């Protein structure tokens, strides 16, 4: 076992962890604030990837692709929240069932627009290639994902702790009724948080596309399963928990994929089962 392999696995694990974080933090925040477990979140992720690749292929600009995917994700999020989620607030079973239906429709729509076959996604030239650092090869694009992930993590933390909106959101997670009683329009806050989560999911998707090189409509569900494992481990409603658990799941996935490839999902599931047995509210979860 040499250093080169370990560093590369670390980078891989962190990069995957960051992508999962983009998905899981939105999921967790939406659940914490609105009590809605959004089973269509993976669909937004896949839509982000497809829209990003489409924009990239037609314009040739990766920046435009990212912006387009995020805006598209936010727009889909707005529509979902306004016409699908809002009419059924407070009804758990109905939400679970409807959002899964939305997931089905979203991934079928992908096939209607872009065909049922997987699409190839290219890395933009200025992020392609690798650096060599004393015999260790570092792939540029993976480092790029990690940097973007860290920036977003810091950004969300700042948003939550330093702004008025963040204050209201955190208060809403603790006690919705009180926030409402103090005169804040909780519905608007819900809407904003949902759109934010949708945008981050789409960003995760568009960043994943060049990383994995190929995108397909089922990838939404695959990543959603990882994101669910992450929110259970990290604790519903906690961005910090999602971050820690995402890195954990990403790293264990990368190392297991190298040493015992067949068991990587099993290890993450085991981790989740362990957390459920010992602390069902998750590592950073609030008591409910």
């Amino acid at each position, binding site marked *: 076992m040499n250093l080169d392999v370990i560093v590369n696995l670390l980078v891989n694990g962190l990069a995957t962890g960051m992508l999962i974080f983009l998905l899981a933090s939105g999921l967790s925040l939406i*659940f914490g604030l609105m009590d809605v*477990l959004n*089973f269509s979140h993976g669909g937004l992720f896949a839509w982000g990837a497809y829209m990003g690749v489409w924009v990239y292929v037609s314009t040739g600009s990766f920046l435009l692709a990212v912006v387009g995917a995020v805006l598209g994700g936010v727009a889909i999020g707005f529509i979902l929240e306004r016409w*699908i989620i809002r*009419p*059924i607030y407070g*009804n*758990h*079973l*109905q939400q*679970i*069932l*409807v959002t*899964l*239906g*939305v997931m*089905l*429709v979203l991934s*079928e*729509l992908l*096939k*209607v627009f872009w065909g*049922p076959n997987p699409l190839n996604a290219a890395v933009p030239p200025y992020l392609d290639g690798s650096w060599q650092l004393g015999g260790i090869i570092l792939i540029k694009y993976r480092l790029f994902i990690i940097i973007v992930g860290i920036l977003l993590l810091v950004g969300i933390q700042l948003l939550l702790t330093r702004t008025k909106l963040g204050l209201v959101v955190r208060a809403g997670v603790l006690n919705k009724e009180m926030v409402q009683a103090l005169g804040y329009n909780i519905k608007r806050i819900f809407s904003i948080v949902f759109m934010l989560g949708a945008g981050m999911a789409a960003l995760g998707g568009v960043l994943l596309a060049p990383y994995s090189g190929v995108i397909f409509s*089922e990838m939404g*569900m*695959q990543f959603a*399963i990882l994101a*669910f*494992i992450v929110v*259970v481990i990290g604790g519903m409603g906690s961005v910090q928990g999602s971050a820690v658990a995402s890195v954990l799941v990403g790293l264990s996935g990368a190392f297991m994929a190298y040493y015992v490839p*067949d068991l990587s*999902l*099993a290890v993450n*599931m085991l981790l*989740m*089962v362990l957390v*459920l*047995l010992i602390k*069902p509210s998750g590592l950073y979860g609030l008591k*409910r």
Partner: protein
Amino acid sequence: MRMISRYTIGLLPIVIIMLLAAYPFMNDSRSTLILLSKIFIFAVFAMSYDLLLGYTGIVSFGHAMFFGIGAYAIGIVMYKIGDSMGMLLLALLIGVVLAAIVSYIVGILTLRLQSHFYAMLTLAFAGLFTVLAEKWRSITKGNDGFPFPIPDFFRDRTTFYYFALVFMILFFLLLRRFTKSPLGRVLQAIRENEQRTASLGYQVVHYKVIVSVVAGVVAALCGGMYGMTLRFVNTSVFSMNTTLDALLMTIIGGIGTLYGGVIGAALIELAHELLTSLAKVHPIFERWIIFFGLLYILVVMVFPLGIAGTFKLWLKRKKTSIPLGKRDDVPW
């Protein structure tokens, strides 16, 4: 008039069963017999899902795993050990026992938590089984799957057709008995008001675990039957689409009625057959499931009773003028 209409509705299932029993004498086209056999099997699968969703108010997104366990149990035993009648029974038994163990473990872990956890965890467990079936190539042959022989007795499509028909009728009666038993009443009480049921002294978690094991076992039997229909098994039995089939059939057909599952299964399988043949007209029909996805969302949001329930309510309304918007027998 009212008496007549009540009797007609009571007679309807008997007439349908008689027509189905007579069907092979009128038309023994292989593909139609297979299609109808599949409808019977999926009807039972949807009914087992209805026990969870419609009668207890539990949402599972991993029902495919029990179906897949049953299908693979049959396939592997028939292929590796032998295709005698005794081996078939052994294979069904293996599938049932495995499904019972898995559903028990998953249930114990999550059914005491909020409903979200069961949905998420069953989804993740089903994902795990898909990976297992893909990776354990020495036994499952990976993604491609494998064909296998079945006992001579069931090789005749007409025999198997009757077997599947009897399977459906038997399980409809058994599951109806189950839901009308004292145990079934407690399940419905949990659906209506969990806290109240708990405060009346019932161990809610125990009852939930029991129903999830029963539903898992029935689903495993359906998986076994499905394997026998196709004489082939691959990883698609574990896929999300199998769970979605159960979900769409149960909800569109009408939850909390059992026979809603039969209506849903017939509707979806027939539509699948019809719409994919229309794919030449317009490629959108290749994606026929999208229509059912939209219909499903509409049903969950606006007509939570589904076809069977709305029809039942419509009949009741004629007698007692209950407003059509009233939602009894629905967990949400």
